[in-house]
């Protein structure tokens, strides 16, 4: 796209369930400035043409995962997508597919969040007392960290769910984000929750419907590879089903450093609030 471009056309899908029977498209022309993101353009549209236009956004730096939407047919973050990257002066923006629409560009992500919650995306351990009132840190080596690190970059934006052809047709399938995150915790050396999650993952909430289209990994704005997580999870579950998986104990507390005291003038950390 030319750097000398002065205007871009936004083609936006609108839907207000209180007013519209079906979604419809509207076009707006807005001034273009180099460095403009799709999100910047949406703000401009709102300012100049459509004050009632609704979408979600927050951080503007690809961290919060709020502004996932369908941009020129591909799920992505509006704040993370430069208009110049699109290679056209027409920016078509629609809400993420595979979700109900709350309004305009706002998808209802509750099914995804619920599927995520059900698969217990947190450290599960038997030592409840240490978990609730921690006295130290659980030990983890850099090699153990590598097993799940890339999956922990997920920001739950829902782009992978919108791109998944299986989730599009089978609402009982958990989808790439919840499954990827279940694998992230199953692979964490501090976690002991594999058996608890396995009960769900062995059934229809598990990864069995995934046929490795790989679209989730292609569209992920954080470079996470949920398709890989799902294949690794399948392997772990099959090995577990065949009783060939080596059970692992969650790691214990790391040794506290000895002979090191607090420097003078540095206050104690405040008591944990959670």
């Amino acid at each position, binding site marked *: 796209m030319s750097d000398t471009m002065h205007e871009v056309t936004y083609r936006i899908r609108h839907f207000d369930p209180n007013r519209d029977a079906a979604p419809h498209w509207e076009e707006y022309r807005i001034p273009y400035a180099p460095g403009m993101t799709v999100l910047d353009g949406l703000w401009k549209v709102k300012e100049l043409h459509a004050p009632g236009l609704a979408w979600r956004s927050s951080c503007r730096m690809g961290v919060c995962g709020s502004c996932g939407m369908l941009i020129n047919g591909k799920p992505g973050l509006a704040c993370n997508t430069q208009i110049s990257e699109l290679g056209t002066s027409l920016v078509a923006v629609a809400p993420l597919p595979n979700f109900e629409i709350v309004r305009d560009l706002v998808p209802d992500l509750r099914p995804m969040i619920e599927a995520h919650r059900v698969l217990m995306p947190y450290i599960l351990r038997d030592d409840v007392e240490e978990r609730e009132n921690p006295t130290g840190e659980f030990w983890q080596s850099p090699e153990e960290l590598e097993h799940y690190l890339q999956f922990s970059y997920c920001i739950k934006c829902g782009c992978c769910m919108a791109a998944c052809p*299986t989730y599009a*047709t089978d609402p009982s399938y958990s989808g790439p984000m919840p499954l990827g995150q279940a694998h992230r915790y199953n692979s964490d050396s501090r976690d002991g929750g594999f058996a608890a999650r396995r009960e*769900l993952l062995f059934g229809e909430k598990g990864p069995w419907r995934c046929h490795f289209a790989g679209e989730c990994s292609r569209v992920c704005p954080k470079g996470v590879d949920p398709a890989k997580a799902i294949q690794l999870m399948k392997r772990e579950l099959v090995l577990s*089903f065949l009783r060939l998986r080596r059970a692992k104990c969650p790691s214990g507390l790391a040794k506290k450093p000895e002979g090191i005291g607090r420097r003078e003038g540095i206050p104690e950390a405040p008591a944990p609030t959670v």
Partner: protein
Amino acid sequence: MMRDAKLWTWHVAAGIVILVFLGLHMAIMHLDEILGIFNPAGGHPIDWENVVARGRTVFFPVTYILLLGAALFHGLYGLRNILLELNPPAWLKGAIGVVLLLVGLGLFALGAWAAVASHTLATSL
């Protein structure tokens, strides 16, 4: 709850069985110049004398039955997955499973009977 994991594991295992026995089939049919031991009568692998010779052994009918079972399970499980992706209602999902199971069992019974019958015929010649 374990049903999906179990079916998937069998699906993978059936794939391995297919790989081995289909590999054997291809080797016998297309590497006959090298693997002449399966063609004792010489000539082409599908010459009548060679077919009868293989049918007389226990090994071949058993592999036919194993390959048939594995291929049926692998294929029908794949077909079931395709049909379930059409998002049928719950009652139809169950019906698809039952129909495919009955079709699979019927075809397996027919194929297994044919394999045993060919063995019986070959040994009687």
